[in-house]
């Protein structure tokens, strides 16, 4: 194998793929990136693959000149460090034979010892994810979405997933597809974010599908998504999901392929926790609320985390306050655009409010409340619903 590569493109690709390769494993082959150089009708492609057994990624780099096709298996870490350090070069040449791979610059030559490429586990392509293979059943659903909407769905939910592994929270986002509707839902047990969008076509597969995609896989996916209009093909299988980014209609030749095992287990019945009998409704200017909450949160600490929201229905005012006994207190007052219902007082973790406001792009949001013990609801249009449980302030 001998390939001349655009250094910047190569570095970006190696960085992305290094993200999935295993870091601690008894099998050193899994800490490697596999390189496959092919040339068809004079058009050369270099494909980089990495896996940690749960998540696999394949990424094609086309700013390459394949002089000799072939493959190599190289420790990801070293490859990345070398390409990064050769920052005075605009191109680098990769040359491999046997188990070693050379990286050639104008004034430097690196020979990195790797493994036979055949030692690397095969990563199935999109077609085998759709049709099924010896190891897996055919996909339950196959459909296409555009990168822009998909990225927004992820951004509007992923922030509400649990930060740490725990027994009561799920480390993933629910993907629910029914006909032309897709929903993503995430919760950490204290709040829940639900985002919706519509597909151009329902795709193949019978009936609605639900699956839980690991948070980690969605973080990788987000980095792979580029141009808003680029199509992303999804195949949801029994225990795996596969994304083909920038693929043709049949999922062939994607620019990037990501596949991940699904999280096992049941997602909480999220429809039940979305309150339906809120009797107070407040319309906010998003930026104003954001800044008010942020300022009121300045005097909170670990033991006194909550911010108190006092809604004055007559004066159409909101008073936000916080108090940390050994630190001091903050008071912020803002005008409300609209207030329906009686006044109410409720406490929230300020971070839970600001994180949701960050992913809303409309200038106006609606907050619905019932009482200080009941969940609060934030909506932005029909496509974003956010439930947040109160903090019991003392």
């Amino acid at each position, binding site marked *: 194998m001998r390939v001349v590569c655009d250094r910047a493109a190569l570095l970006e690709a190696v960085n992305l793929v290094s993200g999935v390769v295993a870091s601690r494993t008894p099998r050193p082959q899994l800490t490697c990136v596999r390189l496959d150089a092919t040339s068809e009708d004079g058009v050369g492609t270099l494909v980089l693959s990495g896996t940690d057994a*749960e998540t696999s990624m394949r990424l094609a780099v086309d700013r390459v000149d394949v002089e000799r096709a072939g493959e190599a298996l190289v420790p990801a870490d070293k490859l990345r460090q070398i390409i990064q350090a050769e920052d005075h070069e605009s191109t680098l040449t990769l040359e491999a034979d046997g188990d070693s791979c050379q990286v050639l610059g104008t004034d430097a030559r690196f020979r990195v010892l790797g493994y036979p490429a055949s030692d690397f586990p095969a990563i199935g392509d999109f077609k085998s994810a759709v049709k099924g293979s010896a190891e897996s059943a055919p996909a339950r659903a196959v459909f296409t979405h555009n990168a822009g909407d998909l990225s927004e769905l992820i951004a509007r939910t992923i922030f509400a997933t649990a930060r*740490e592994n725990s*027994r009561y929270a799920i480390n993933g986002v629910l993907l629910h597809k029914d006909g032309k509707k897709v929903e993503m839902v995430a919760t950490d047990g204290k709040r829940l974010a639900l985002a919706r969008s519509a597909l151009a076509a329902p795709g193949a597969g019978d009936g609605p599908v639900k699956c839980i995609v690991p948070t980690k896989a969605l973080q990788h996916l987000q980095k792979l998504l580029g141009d808003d209009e680029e199509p992303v093909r999804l195949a949801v299988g029994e225990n795996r999901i596969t994304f083909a980014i920038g693929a043709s209609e049949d999922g062939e030749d994607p620019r990037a392929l990501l596949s991940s095992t699904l999280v096992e287990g049941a997602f909480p019945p999220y429809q039940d926790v979305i309150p339906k009998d809120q009797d107070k409704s407040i319309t906010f200017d998003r930026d104003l609320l954001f800044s008010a909450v942020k300022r009121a949160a300045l005097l909170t600490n670990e033991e006194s*985390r909550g911010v108190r929201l006092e809604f004055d229905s007559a004066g159409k005012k909101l008073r936000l306050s916080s108090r940390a006994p050994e630190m001091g207190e903050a008071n912020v007052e803002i005008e409300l655009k609209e207030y329906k219902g009686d006044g109410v007082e409720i406490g929230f973790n300020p971070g839970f409010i600001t994180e949701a406001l960050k992913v809303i792009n409309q200038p106006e949001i609606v907050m619905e409340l019932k009482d200080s013990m009941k969940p609060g609801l934030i909506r932005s249009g029909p496509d974003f619903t956010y439930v947040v*449980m*109160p903090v019991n302030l003392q």
Partner: protein
Amino acid sequence: MHTPIPSLASIHWAVPPSTLQRPAIRVLPPLVADQIAAGEVVERPASVVKELLENALDAGATRIEVELAQGGIELIRITDDGAGIPPDELPLALAAHATSKLRDAEELARIGTLGFRGEALASITSVARVRIRSVAPGHEPSEIEGAGDQRSAVRPAAVARGTSIEVRTLFFNTPARRRFLRTPATEQTRCMEVVRDLALAHPAVALRALCDGRETLDLRAEQGPRARALAILGRELEDNLVEVHADEQHDARGVSLWGLVGTPAVARSNARAQRVFVNGRAVRDPSIQHALREAYRGLIEPGRYPTAVLMIDLPPDGVDVNVHPAKAEVRFRDQGMVHSLVLNTVREALRRADLTPTLAHRTGARPAIFGPGDGPTDTASDAQSFADYFRRDLPASTGGRFDYQAVRDALDRVLTMGSKVEPAGDASDERERPDPASPEAAPATPASQLEALPRRDHLQVHQSYVVAQDDDGVVIVDQHALHERAMFEALHARITAGPLESQSLLTPAVVDTSSERVTRLEELTPLLERLGIDAAALSPSTVGVRAFPTLLFSRGVDPIDFMSELLDRADADAFVPDSEEALREVLDMMACKAAVKAGDRLTDAEIGALLELRGSVERSTSCPHGRPTSVRLTLADLERLFERR
């Protein structure tokens, strides 16, 4: 009730005998004598349940029903299908020192029944209202009633088979003792513990229990002790239980041992999950508890107790059951033999069992591309760290790896040179020490690299200790111990001002526990409220946590783990929910979970903050574990160590 007997010394010195008006010696009226005797037998509803169940079992029952009202304080009714009592013997059943189970002193040496004193029913009747209805084959069904020293005539009654004994308003005539009873929920828990114990020991008997009309237990007759034990302990525990077995063949003296013992993973913070039975009788035996603890030495941390159900059967003449008023203790003829039988059998079973924890892989099945058994899991390194965890208790590790215990011991040694120190007793947080397989846990730094360390006025070593200097010399801080202590003080101060702030949950976090613990939840509620925990029973054996302190959430403490440990601790006898001790115990647990752990890498800023805490903490007198949070090597100590002086 036991009247505390003052020591001879105090009698002798308290009042000069000559000044006493001495009352004459009199024989006590029979009722008073019985009531005093009853004090030994009947302490609380659970003791009544125990006696009545033993009688039913002695009568050869195959099906027993237990009914309780108000935790047994108002009513205990036990119905069996055993041999029954003929009408003419009913008055004797209520009489003291009357039994069908023993004829002479010689038989006392080889008792094969659970009862033998002929005292239980008499004692119970002296302090409660009792009615016996019974039918013996070939006799008329009849009943008798008794209360205090009153006895009814024997009357005909409607009974299909066996015996039904009802005990109402326990201690109706001894109000002082009635007042000493705990809440119905607690008494019910105690009663059900007795029922479960006897059920464990008698698997062939079907047992049903109703508490205030609700069924709390329904056990069918089982083939053997294993099936019964799993029915009671919960099938989900099966993977964490190791069967132990030694039968008569192993031992010429005809002693057999059978049991289920828990893996280290299910060890508890108190000894209540250890059940020991001798010839079908639940007993407390410190020597068997000791044997168990020895068998687990090095497998579980000090301060935790293995779970175990052990059944020892031996010929009746090998054990004296007549040593404790409530028959709760026995004396083995050959104590040493029983001790070593338990120790060796359990130790051997643990050695043979595969104690490697199974790694629950959260996401999906392993893809087939890796083939069976050689996937890129972390099994190897996890097994390594697990093995290290066990190895910790072995003396002197010679490898380059960080040995927490050795460091502790070394510090203790250093310390004892200067001042008096309490031994580092509690080691319960050692499991939080760094995982040696993680990349951050580098092997001990060779001395030659020391100069390469950045110049700072403090240094974190092995991500567990912070070394700093002060005017007197070197201070070494145990980061977890210090932070825990500071957290404890802060929480304690905070909670006296009002309940902790709590975050509500969308859906309750579900804690699986036992029905006894669920019934005790009510007593715990005021304490939980102060802590910012809102918990309620979801079912007879689950508790739902609806709100949990924001502080613990932000420190990554899992509400399920926390709550089950809290319920576990609250189960201990010494735990009085509304006491200051209980509050301190729980705050201590919170502090321990919320504090930085040994093995957490700290930033400079965090270390600085931690060192600042030192001043405030050291001044305070209260301390959760009573062990030092930091130690000091003064310049004088150093001079001595380096033999400069």
